[in-house]
């Protein structure tokens, strides 16, 4: 078990010390354009995101629902490249929040795990969230993240057995990403009661902070989860706010308003 609070863990512990959960916002690079996505990331930081998940658009996003699938397709059609991710990471760091990159594994593998890690560290990234990489397959990434002082955030799910929870959380650094429900990304009207039970099961095997993702779209949901988790992750809802036919400044305003409301939620949960 790690004793030192590194990158993203320090942020989560600081939020905990303030008596609140952290707000983690996901946005994909390149949506609606590369510049627009960087602007959107600055917007969510300004509106209260503590940590930004910088998403890398991928041709085959099999853990994502329609909203993020469409955003990734738009980003790729618009010419977004993996290189752009490091620009976005640096921008989030400059804006004062902590950037972590969320990426499907082949994009890291193809760039070279060592090169990706070095580029990420150089850009100021705290680490990687890897939705389709389990610790069993991660030896190269574990070594590279150690060399570069990067966090490695693996996922756990309601289906995870106690043995798997122990194994996965032992490989994590930074925080544990707990999927609230079985399924893919996308806003849901209610976040499963499985989420609370999963957080309890994770806490039984690790002292690492636990963040809940999948399905969060409202202030009320954020507040509900903030009552028992260290961080609340919102993704599809933010991407949807950034979508639509209006001009970009108007959409950024909508994104700011939603993020502010979620930021209120993570502060309301413990009161």
């Amino acid at each position, binding site marked *: 078990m790690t004793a030192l609070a590194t990158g993203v863990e320090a942020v989560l512990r600081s939020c905990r010390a303030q008596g609140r959960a952290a707000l983690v916002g996901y946005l994909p690079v390149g949506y609606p354009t590369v510049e627009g996505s960087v602007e959107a990331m600055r917007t969510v930081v300004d509106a209260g995101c503590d940590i930004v998940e910088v998403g890398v658009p*991928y041709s085959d996003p099999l853990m994502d629902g329609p909203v993020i699938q469409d955003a990734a397709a738009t980003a790729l059609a618009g010419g977004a490249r993996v290189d752009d991710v490091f620009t976005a990471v640096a921008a989030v760091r400059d804006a004062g929040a902590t950037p972590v990159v969320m990426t499907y594994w082949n994009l890291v593998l193809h760039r070279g795990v060592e090169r990706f890690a070095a580029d990420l560290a150089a850009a100021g990234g705290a680490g990687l969230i890897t939705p389709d990489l389990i610790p069993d397959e991660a030896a190269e990434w574990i070594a590279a993240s150690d060399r570069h002082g990067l966090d490695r955030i693996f996922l756990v*799910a309601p289906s995870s057995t106690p043995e*798997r929870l122990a194994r996965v959380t032992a490989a994590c650094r930074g925080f544990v990403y707990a999927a609230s429900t079985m399924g*893919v990304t996308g806003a849901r009207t209610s976040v499963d009661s499985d989420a609370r039970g999963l957080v309890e099961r994770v806490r039984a095997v690790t002292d690492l902070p636990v963040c809940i993702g999948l399905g969060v779209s409202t202030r009320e949901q954020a507040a509900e989860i903030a009552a028992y988790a260290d961080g609340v992750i919102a993704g599809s809802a933010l991407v949807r706010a950034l979508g639509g036919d209006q001009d970009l400044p108007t959409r950024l305003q909508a994104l700011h308003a939603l993020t502010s409301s979620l930021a209120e939620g993570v502060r309301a949960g413990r009161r």
Partner: protein
Amino acid sequence: MSQNDAAPAPADLTVEDLPPAGRFGDFGGRYVPEALVPALEQIDEARQKAAVDPEFQAELARLHATYTGRPSIITEVPRFAAHCGGARVLLKREDLNHTGSHKINNVLAQALLTKRMGKTRIIAETGAGQHGVATATAAALMGLECTVYMGRVDTERQALNVARMRILGAEVVAVEHGSATLKDAINEAMRDWVTNVGTTHYAIGTVTGPHPFPEMVRDFHAVIGEEARAQVLELTGRLPDAVVACVGGGSNAMGIFHRFVGDADVRLVGVEAGGEGIESGRHAARFAGSSATPGVLHGAMSYLMQDADGQTVESHSISAGLDYPSVGPEHSFLRDSGRAEYRYATDDQVMEAFSLLSRTEGIIPALESAHALVGAMQLGRELGPDGLVLVNLSGRGDKDMHTAAAYFGLVGEGTQ
């Protein structure tokens, strides 16, 4: 048996140091969301138990004998062979199986496992529709709920199979995303599975996907090679010089190759889809194209058509069943180790072989299987009159009449 069974672990290594399960050399593995790991472990346990359970084996054998139509026959095709340099050519007739292809071998076994695992719903992806039809058939037979994912492009070029699946009671979902072909159908099936894994088994239709699928699907198709090896020996008194099969994901090829891997003098030849030619970029020849390097797609490390960033490159083939940008990991292993060799056939060569077998032997092959026939024509010429070539005729061509009629200009009346 997995490849790493043979390597004993040194005493000072912990479990963490062992290679992950289901590797074929560097290929294979389990690149999946954590949410699916318990289901994969359950499947692995169930299939290992079934492999040594006489009751399971007897039930599967009974189904193959009374439902699939096994053993499938072999047919010698001398009039076709006259176009193959005079070598003897034998066809393993998987096209005569119930539902019209080899796919039923795997699906019946996975459907039995589905029931053993206490699941009530089975889902599948399909390209040409053959795996979807086989899954819908097994679901009807065993009283399972069934959903099949199929790319929109494929629902159009294989409309007959869509109708068959619906008649069998399956729900067919047309997938619009990405290239709207086989890879996108797999993405959507994976999304369904991760959402409904408590009740649902995902019957992957080929030797790809996370461990244990590549091994398990191969083992369920190994009956093809088991039968064929004995049949060829009985008919000719010797082993073939070459065994030829088409390779999309590569299940029919692994099925016929597996029993011959230990026969060092038997060449194993896989034929990929060359589409409009390698230089056109519109093909599915993972081992021939310059864009193919090892990568991860759909849970396995294997050769993969990808761009400079690792984004998947869209494949192309006239045959929907071979239109896939990656390939089963064991094929990558057999290729890099030199045990198997891979070549490709272009759409035009395939249509010529399709027509030739139809006209010389009265057997209309699936367009997928016609790729193997192109390989047989080349190998026969290379081997000469003493050569003996065994071809896995993996499916029949009824489903391809629309494509063939359009290609040969047979649409409308009074042609030819």
